[in-house]
């Protein structure tokens, strides 16, 4: 409880990167420990529950595939909120957050694509189909990579922040397309079976491991994200220290 109230109190003055670093140092071990806990429980559940009578053992891919697909979209949402933070509230950490989230999002999307491919081969008989859901996730993956390339191409973070924030917001249109693609277009990929207004249609046998894994993945995302933000702040400090060093080097040597 103490942790949470501390976090709320500090959220308002998180703009100060030093405060953020202190907070990150405090919460990271907890997040990491919780992640490990949930993953242990989730994996144990995943491998002890029974396989599907139609799909056999391959159904267990779902416990990785579905959470990483959720995360690929949530990560982009986090980036879009950060982009808003950059453009509207000019929060100095928003850009750090967006920048740090891109590689993580790309990794989760890649994981979703690969596990989906591995699942699709025995189920559909092919590694890949150009179905609406798969294609839009692939486009999301390309967008992550494009944003990463853009971030790398501009070495001055202050300038690149706004440009990439605009691009992130424009790219956000893809998220609803991914979410509803399976309902708008009737394609090979099955429709959602957990997040439904009329309650999950999935068998409780599969639901529990899936939920535990999803929580584990979400915790993993936040652990990685906070750690990546911390690294990004440190990276910027190192850069500015080095520029400072370059400026000082000339002065002392030229003093006669």
């Amino acid at each position, binding site marked *: 409880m103490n942790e949470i109230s501390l976090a709320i109190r500090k959220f308002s003055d998180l703009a100060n990167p030093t405060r953020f670093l202190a907070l990150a140092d405090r919460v990271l071990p907890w997040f990491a420990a919780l992640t490990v806990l949930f993953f242990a429980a989730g994996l144990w559940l995943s491998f002890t529950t029974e396989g599907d009578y139609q799909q056999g053992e391959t159904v267990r891919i779902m416990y990785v595939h579905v959470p990483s697909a959720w995360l690929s979209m949530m990560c982009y949402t986090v980036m879009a909120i950060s982009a808003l933070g950059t453009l509207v509230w000019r929060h100095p950490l928003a850009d750090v957050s967006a920048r740090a989230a891109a590689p993580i999002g790309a990794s989760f999307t890649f994981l979703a694509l690969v596990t989906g*491919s591995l699942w699709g081969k025995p189920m559909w008989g*092919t*590694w*890949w*189909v*150009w*179905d609406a859901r798969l*294609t839009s996730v*692939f*486009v999301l993956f*390309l967008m992550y*990579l*494009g944003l*990463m*390339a853009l971030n*790398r*191409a501009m*070495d001055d973070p202050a300038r690149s922040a706004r440009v990439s924030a605009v691009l992130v917001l424009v790219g956000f249109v893809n998220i609803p397309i991914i979410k509803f693609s399976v309902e708008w277009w009737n394609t090979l990929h099955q429709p959602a079976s957990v997040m439904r207004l009329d309650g999950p249609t999935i068998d409780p046998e599969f639901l529990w491991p899936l939920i535990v894994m999803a929580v584990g993945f979400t915790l993993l995302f936040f652990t990685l994200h906070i750690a990546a933000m911390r690294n990004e702040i440190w990276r910027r400090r190192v850069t500015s220290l080095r520029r400072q060093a370059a400026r000082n080097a000339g002065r002392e040597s030229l003093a006669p």
Partner: protein
Amino acid sequence: MIALFFRDLKLSVRAGGGAMIGVLFFMTVVSVIPFGVGPDLNLLARIGAAILWIGALLASLLGLDRLFQGEREDGSLDLMLMHETPLVLTVFVKCAAHWAATGLPLVVASPFLGLFMNMDELAIGATMLTLLAGTPAITFIGAVGAAVAVALPRGGLLVSILVLPLAIPVLIFGVSAVYAAIEDPAPFLPPFMILMAITLFFAVIGPVAAAAALRHSAD
């Protein structure tokens, strides 16, 4: 010369380098094709090799104009022209480094895109092999275009226009070798041998011509 190779590799991997952009462009080009021709898996499997080859051709043209332009802008090219090492060798090493940074990742990425195209294992293997043998030729041809256009302010597009017609034989034999590999009666080796011959031929002609063009571009 080894120093030059590693310096160019470092430059293309560092921030602002073109190594990652090429692969990204390749993936984007290949993935828009199914939107154009429709998601028919049989059709895609049939034209997959050709699409991969065209995508790789366009992607390897992408960074070529910077091959000498960056060196010229900061004056490094002058020092390379003065040096007693044969300029041909310098150009060759620069091409090799450029290919290792941009061409090789395309070859590595091609199997994954092959899966998207619903190609079977044999076709993917053949495409990868022909790309490995054929993309260096595109770099060597491109070096000539880059050297000719080095002094022009907007050389980028011009390089592509100059180089594409010359690269057509590479495309023809690369794609026909893949089709020879997957369709039974046609033998794989003859077109593949011709492809390798083209690469070796341009590995000699390209640097010589590029070096000559660079010498005359100095002002």
